[in-house]
């Protein structure tokens, strides 16, 4: 039966379900046990499943991912938490060099069912290294899958599917949406993990986004509607792979595309989307694919982050520019 819960709680429920149903599933990371994680996403799990399954690790990200790889080789399915986006880089070597390639190096003889959870993105007034969006750095790496849910229901189901995946999944959690509530139906039948979804239909322009930017895009579409413009929103949900078929169908209907993400625009996922949609739908496009995202500057201090992050007006500006063609 559907229940309304916060996105963070949905992930918690999803982890709980996985721990209950598969004895090989482990949760590990810094402060995930007694504290329940700094965002309380793992709240209560250690109490119910014990210290051997919900593991407080030493404070060493490479160690967390490296030992998770060893546990996966032993047959476990570790779900590891990186406490904040900006803290993942000590583990980047293990993720890129080892985790991503192990299956191929062994010619398919071993599998790496490891989920790396990363709360990401800004908008929470945090100090440095707590607000970044490094998803493109992982999407660039063959062997990894990269996803980001935008609402509670997806958070629940995509976590279930990520844990069941025999490939490593980098699971980006939109931290500023952790407390947003949504309906979660644990008995529903979910769609594929890597399928994009049209979350609002429209005719004049397609907005493509994922994670924290989907909610912003809904607000943009509402504002644009007041001006008589009908925007369609595609929640990509998965950044590797990207469901280009769904996006292409939308773009060929609306003929215009604006991609929105918090990550820097330069070499961001929007760049890849623009290139591929241009290639696929060249004769359908009325305007170049536009992108709204972060600047090519270090993530700014909190008092400036509103200038850096895409907001209603910046996306509407891009919509106007696209429609002006």
């Amino acid at each position, binding site marked *: 039966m559907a229940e309304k819960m916060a996105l963070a709680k949905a992930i918690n429920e999803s982890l709980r379900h996985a721990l209950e149903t598969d004895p090989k599933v482990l949760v590990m990371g810094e402060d995930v046990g007694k504290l329940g994680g700094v965002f309380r996403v793992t709240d209560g799990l250690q109490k119910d499943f014990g210290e*051997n399954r919900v593991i407080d*690790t*030493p404070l*060493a990200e*490479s*160690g967390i*991912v*490296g*030992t*998770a*790889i*060893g*546990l*996966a*080789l*032993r*047959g*476990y399915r570790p779900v590891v938490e990186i406490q904040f986006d900006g803290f993942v880089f*000590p583990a980047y*070597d*293990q993720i890129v*060099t*080892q985790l991503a*390639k*192990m*299956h*191929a*190096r*062994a*010619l*398919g*003889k*071993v*599998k*790496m069912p490891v989920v790396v959870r990363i709360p990401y993105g800004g908008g929470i007034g945090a100090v440095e290294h707590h607000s970044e969006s490094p998803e493109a750095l992982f999407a660039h790496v*063959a*062997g990894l*899958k990269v996803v980001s849910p935008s609402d509670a229901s997806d958070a629940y189901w995509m976590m279930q599917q990520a844990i069941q*995946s*025999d*490939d490593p999944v980098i699971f980006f959690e939109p931290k500023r949406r952790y407390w947003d509530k949504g309906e979660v139906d644990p008995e529903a039948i979910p769609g594929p993990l*890597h399928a994009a979804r049209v979350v609002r239909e429209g005719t004049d322009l397609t907005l493509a986004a994922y994670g924290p930017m989907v909610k912003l895009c809904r607000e943009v579409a509402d504002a644009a509607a007041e001006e008589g413009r009908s925007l369609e929103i595609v929640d990509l949900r998965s950044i*590797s*792979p*990207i*469901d*280009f078929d769904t996006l292409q169908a939308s773009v060929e209907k609306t003929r215009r595309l604006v991609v929105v993400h918090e990550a820097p625009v330069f070499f961001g996922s929007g760049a890849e989307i623009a290139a591929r949609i241009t290639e696929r739908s060249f004769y359908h496009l009325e305007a170049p694919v536009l992108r709204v995202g972060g600047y090519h500057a270090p993530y700014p201090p909190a008092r400036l982050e509103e200038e850096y992050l895409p907001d209603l007006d910046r996306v509407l500006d891009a919509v106007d520019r696209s429609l002006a063609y």
Partner: protein
Amino acid sequence: MTVESTAAHKPRRSAGGKTGGTGTKATGTTGTKRTTRAAKKSTDPQLVQLLTPEGERVANPEYDPYVAGITPEDLRGLYRDMVLTRRFDAEATSLQRQGELGLWASLLGQEAAQIGSGRATREDDYVFPTYREHGVAWCRGVDPTNLLGMFRGVNNGGWDPNGNNFHLYTIVIGSQALHATGYAMGITMDGADSAVIAYFGDGASSQGDVNEAFNFAAVYNAPVVFFCQNNQWAISESNEKQTRVPLYQRAQGFGFPGVRVDGNDVLASLAVTRWALDRARRGEGPALIEAFTYRMGAHTTSDDPSRYRHDDERIAWEAKDPILRLRRHLEAANHADEGFFGELEAESEALGRRVREAVRAMPDPDRFALFEHAYADGHALVDEERARFAAYQASFADAEGGQ
């Protein structure tokens, strides 16, 4: 600075200064039963040796029990392992020179460390190697020709790690120490009494991953043995560039015992590794073994050691050759006759021939193999790119067919 002087190098700060000189092995949080050992200053590395370079068996009350049951046949077996491993290694070096392999990392000089430790493992134990553990692979029953695929460039690993509980060669230095620790944590969770052994070198001891592995292993009391082959050289950098303390003493700061063993002594390497694996199985946690040895050859076939070390250093180590010393012992004890050595030579040549023929017959992979196994569950982009690649390849066939 010579290797000997490296060994005698006194750290500025003694890691063991506050232990009151309780021994070269830290008792650690898990403790060991052997606290009665004669006091040694931790700055004075104690090398465990059971066979002198002259092949003389020396008593060691602490480690003798671990090789008490060794028969002359076992000794001949260890000798055979080392000779065949060296022969295989030499063949691979030749194959690289002939252009059959792109690269080879020779283990020349490290046979005793690898065969001694490798033969200490049990079938259900798990080994995490670097890229130079050809002798350990031999002990685990991995077909030596399987090791050559990645050096020939036909795959990036290519054997089933679970087939012999011998993980893929790991090139990025030290990464595998964490995998070994995680695997060992899994063994504990499973309630099994297997153990894990992680190989790495003196260079890797500087890596964060190795130190994180030490710490994770200690914190979780994981059944993992860290086997560091200190072959004195990390490509061109000597020990002084890696450490201020003898490497085995690093263990003390992490809370588990460390031992330095003569890595050119196969019997001592076997005994010390058995000791470490046994205590790991008993739930006494990790241990660090520093096998003091020497890389007689270049780092790889691409390296030129004459740029950074004197040949007299290698010559000095040749006097401590691991194979020569066991041969001397076998001969002095009358444990092997000419017939044994003659048959082994023939076996060596046969192995060399088999390896040579197998490598030369190793086909290039199918071009579509580059997409294979990128993912276990598939990936839309890989499918799309494979299809495009196939169409591109087919376009040549069409062009040829149309002519």
